[in-house]
């Protein structure tokens, strides 16, 4: 992975490399350098397989992290590219001309997180939810328990117990 990182540093300006284990590494890239870097990795370095395109919501920092995970089947290496986007009006360039299946991932991200990918085919169509009018559900500020309790009626007689409190009462009832 280090040789690959050196050759990437010659052409682009990636961030620091985090090696998770032998054969898997993550690095942060700037938003404008993502498409050329993906093209270079796919055509010259042999990372032809797009495994995953997903987003993580860092609400406290006010950012979305998009993770593009590519895989090189011959050398058994995975590399994850992180792109940080601001949470307001998040949008990103589409990569569906590099990999046709990216269109599906982008549709899901648009519906679940609200990240826009202009020009991606069928990106504004409903994918998983139907008639959804609230916040995009996978964001951290959407409270799913409150929504479920407000929309669907409960059957009486159901109790919920916090396991930590329950175990403390069972094992150490006298201690504080």
């Amino acid at each position, binding site marked *: 992975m280090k040789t690959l990182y050196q050759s990437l540093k010659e052409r682009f300006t990636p961030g620091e490399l985090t090696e*998770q284990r032998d054969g898997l590494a993550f690095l942060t890239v700037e938003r404008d350098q993502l498409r050329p870097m993906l093209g270079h990795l796919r055509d010259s370095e042999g990372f032809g397989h797009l495994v995953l395109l*997903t987003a993580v919501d860092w609400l406290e920092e006010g950012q979305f992290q998009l993770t593009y995970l590519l895989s090189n089947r011959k050398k058994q290496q995975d590399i994850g590219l992180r792109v940080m986007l601001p949470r307001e009006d998040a949008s990103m360039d589409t990569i569906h001309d590099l990999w*046709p299946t990216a269109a599906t991932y982008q549709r899901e991200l648009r519906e679940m997180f609200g990240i826009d990918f202009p020009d991606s085919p069928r990106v504004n169509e409903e994918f998983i939810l139907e008639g959804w009018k609230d916040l995009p559900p996978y964001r951290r500020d959407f409270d799913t328990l409150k929504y479920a309790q407000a929309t669907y009626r409960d059957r009486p007689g159901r109790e919920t117990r916090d396991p930590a409190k329950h175990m403390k009462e069972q094992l150490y009832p006298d201690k504080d």
Partner: protein
Amino acid sequence: MYQPDRSQYPQKRVDGTLDIDLKSGKYLKLWQGPQHPGVTGNMSIELTVCGDEVVDAKTHVGYLHRGFEKLMERRTFMQVFPIVCRVCVPEPDFNEYCYAAAVEELAGIEIPESARWIRTLILEMGRINSYLMYLGGQAGAFGQGVIGQWTTYVRDLMLDRFEELTGARIYHMFILPGGVRGHLPEGFSGRMEETLREIESVMDDVEKVMFQNAVFKKRSIGVSVIDPALLDSYGITGPNARAAGVARDVRTEQPYLVYPELELEAVIGHDSDIFTRAEVRRRDLLMSIDLVRQILAKMPLEGAVMTKLPNVLHWKIPRGETFIRGECSRGEYGYYVVTDGSGYPRRVNVRGPSYTHSIALFERLIINANISDVAGTLVSLHTYPPEVER
């Protein structure tokens, strides 16, 4: 030579797309909807049909969406494992293994030797079950209902073994972060050997009735061919890729658990049509039976099965992210887990193989196919809708 008259069919425009004018009355929109015996699970296909030929297709998913990834963020690390097996209904053990391996890697725990062997045994048993269910579905899509009855019967015998080992038929909840929950019971190897012999005798019958049947061959040879050049751009893995001649199997390329100590090889076929995919899965099933016999022969019978975990009610894992992959019966299964230092996972993303097979690849394969081939193609890609929309 006979040239069919295609003047009534949609013509290609200059940029390669088809000229479909829905107002002209030539086309019919058919929904092969969620309540249909020709779809595997709850998925629907919106077909635009001209005569008997499909000219456009759109897949609709989302009928089984429960918001798993959101639910997992509300539960602590150990509370996630009862719900994680319900992501993929017919083959649930893979979810447990990938999640447990990801949490162990992020927390820095090593699992004992017996636990690794038992995990591999469970994964291989699950793989046999999944292939048996596939064979029943594939024959049923072409009209042979009796194969489904035979394979469901032997699948039940294997579910009996699961019940002996883990306590439940379908959702085992046996593989958790730190190891597995128990040892093999007494006499398990003997009963397992009987079950495997029963499965082998049924597979002989299945081969004669299904794979040497003229109707099955006529309907499946040459139908819905996957071009090997599309493998990387469409993310095709598993038996779909191996039937196209490319030896792609995570168990041989990046061996995990105890696969380095077992003898196995990737099963490949060369014409990637429906018949070859079914043939590859049948041979893979026989190889899995052989692997189960090898595991039971080489397994250590004593030893701990769980490591000592910290107090799981207050277990905090430092910040990090990882991706674990494994080879399930449909292709390459992966879990991407991000933690942030609190007691709850930050983000768990399930990447099932059907995500790319059932939407992008399927819509491409059934263009210009007959309506009666649509069900057969969908089953031959071996997609399970719950893992597409979780």
